[in-house]
């Protein structure tokens, strides 16, 4: 009977224990090995591009002249995305955690999570077919009235397929990430702090200013960093929306390029040294996002250890 086998089969049981715990540990180590492997294989495949003579690399000026403008382009797109998404995301998180009726709150949270569920290629298609067209009059307006600012220098792109449009699409994609993490941290605010503030006669906003935001600041910062990681690595939104070109200061002209989009657009047809160049570009992207994510995680764990409030 099975009940007997549970208790009597000593030898088999001990072996089973060993095998099972060994398998569990092996799986854990496999994950570490994979992450190590990601770094290793990228480095191995990237080395030919780094050591190749300068004229073999696209552009003819060596790898670093090739990668520098697209690194800057990647940063520009990510910064635009964060500048737009952060205030909105914090507002949405506050709305769900402290403003919305308690009954609706979880349902509304699910609605925002739906934004995260939509595949990136659909966002890219939406940005290219709908947003770019609708937003180009606004670019004309910017070019006419604010054209003296270098980032809004005209003439504006007629198709609207600019780095600013790509940044807006990216902001929609990082919004749910920042929202869900900030919401979690806002909900953890000690109830006593909130009630003490309200009992002292604070309005709801003053309560949030005094109790919720100071408590949530590390959480918000790490949420923004994670959003930054996502915005840096996002491919499709940029590849489909942006009509790429050389690095330009103006956000409303076509031009600029990001690392991820550069890889996606060129890798399928690439051969020879070009493959190594693109993998090296991927390595640069990997290092940047790894750094951003590690800082974010470090802030989270530090906060977890020293937060005496809960």
């Amino acid at each position, binding site marked *: 009977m099975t009940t007997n086998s549970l*208790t009597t089969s000593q030898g088999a*049981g001990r072996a*089973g224990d060993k095998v*099972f*715990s060994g398998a*569990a540990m092996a*799986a*854990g*180590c496999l*994950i570490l090995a*994979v*992450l190590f*492997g*990601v770094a290793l294989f*990228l480095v*191995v495949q990237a080395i030919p591009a780094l050591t190749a003579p300068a004229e073999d690399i696209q552009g003819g000026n060596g790898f670093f002249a090739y990668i520098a403008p697209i690194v800057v382009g990647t940063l520009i797109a990510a910064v635009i995305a964060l500048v737009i998404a952060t205030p909105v995301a914090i*507002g949405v998180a*506050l*709305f769900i955690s402290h403003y919305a009726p308690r009954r609706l709150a979880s349902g509304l949270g699910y*609605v*925002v999570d*739906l934004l995260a*569920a*939509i*595949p*990136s*290629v*659909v966002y*890219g*298609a939406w940005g290219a*077919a*709908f947003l770019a067209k609708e937003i180009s009059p606004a670019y004309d307006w910017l070019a006419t009235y604010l054209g003296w600012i270098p980032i809004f220098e005209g003439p504006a792109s007629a198709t609207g397929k600019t780095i600013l449009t790509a940044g807006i699409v990216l902001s929609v994609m990082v*919004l749910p990430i920042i*929202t869900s993490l900030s919401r979690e941290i806002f909900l953890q605010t000690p109830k006593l702090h909130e009630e003490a503030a309200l009992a002292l006669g604070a*309005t*709801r*906003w*003053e309560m949030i200013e005094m109790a919720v935001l100071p408590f949530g600041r590390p959480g918000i910062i790490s949420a923004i960093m994670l959003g930054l*990681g996502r915005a840096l*690595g*996002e*491919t*499709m939104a940029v*590849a*489909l929306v942006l009509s790429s070109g050389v690095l330009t200061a103006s956000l409303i002209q076509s031009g600029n390029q990001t690392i*991820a989009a550069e*890889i*996606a657009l060129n*890798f*399928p047809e690439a051969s020879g040294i070009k*493959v190594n160049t*693109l*993998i090296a570009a*991927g390595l640069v*992207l*990997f290092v940047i*996002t790894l750094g*951003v994510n*590690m800082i974010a*995680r470090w802030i989270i764990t530090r906060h977890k250890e020293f937060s005496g409030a809960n």
Partner: protein
Amino acid sequence: MTATVVRKRSALTKGQLPKFAPYIVLAVALIVGAAILALIGFNAFGWGLVSAILFAVGLVSWSGAVEGARKAKDKLATCLVVGSFLIALLPLISVIFTVLVNGIPGLITPGFLGTSMNGVTGAFDNKAVEEGAPVLGGIYHALMGTLQITLLATVISVPVGLLTSIYLVEYGNDRPLARAITFFVDVMTGIPSIVAGLFAAAFFFAIVGPGTKTGAVAAVALSVLMIPVVVRSSEEMLKIVPNELREASYALGVRKWRTITKVVIPTAISGIASGVTLAIARVIGETAPILVTAGFATTINNNVFGGWMASLPTFIYTQILNPTSPSNPEPSDQRAWGAALVLIILVMLLNLGARLIARLFAPKTGR
């Protein structure tokens, strides 16, 4: 300020706006907004925007005049917070509306779900535009490719992810190895999807030979993205299994691995299954890693270990970026939007399924 005491009002509510104040301001804002928009050319989006700004300005300044600066600031914050939520809803509604409007014509085309793009050339698309012939071609090959690649990725990720989470919860005990795994799983969650694709490509280029692009390579790339999600969700679920259950099992003399497989996992299975479903929903829409690992095919390929393979996301991508007929991109756009609709439906079904699994198979608490 309140010199004219006309109505009897309680001293407690003195110096406060009446309850119906926001509704009055809203009505006035809508009317004035409509009037302004009528002057410069009416559109619904502009009306909403102008009215919202008018509403916020009106309510805040009225509140400032009657209730003082602190209450006005509170009202302003409320307006901004609610406004940001409404702004966040705009892209969601817009995306879903765009996909529905553009996708339904493609989806209802006969043979869209049942045929591949094999033999569909630009000539057919030109004919469709110029002579009104039916749009040929479909997404069968891409749908099959997506299902096979995702299935293989799931088969790889679930055992690894589940075993890792078991190690972390049951065996880890906060050892350095467990802490390292937790940290790097978190870091892995943030790997850009295209880097995961490049890794798989570089790995197979080195092992099998340069230019190896098959469905299996794509599945490995997707596993890299999927494993951390599975680990995190399973870990959370295993952690909430009550310790009393484990201890009761040990007290009966049951071995640890039998306790885990017979007691802990069955208790947490609903949460684990819903986490896995969400992880599938996350990777099924990934485009970039498949693009660099599986190439894009126009024919049905049922062998994940040989030859290029199509998938829904890469199908959408290539149909938009490189239309079958460059001079007449409309049929390609129609197919792309149809495929996007199918993809969104798949993802939504998976999300819904995850919620249903979590609810239906939740462990019964005995009280």
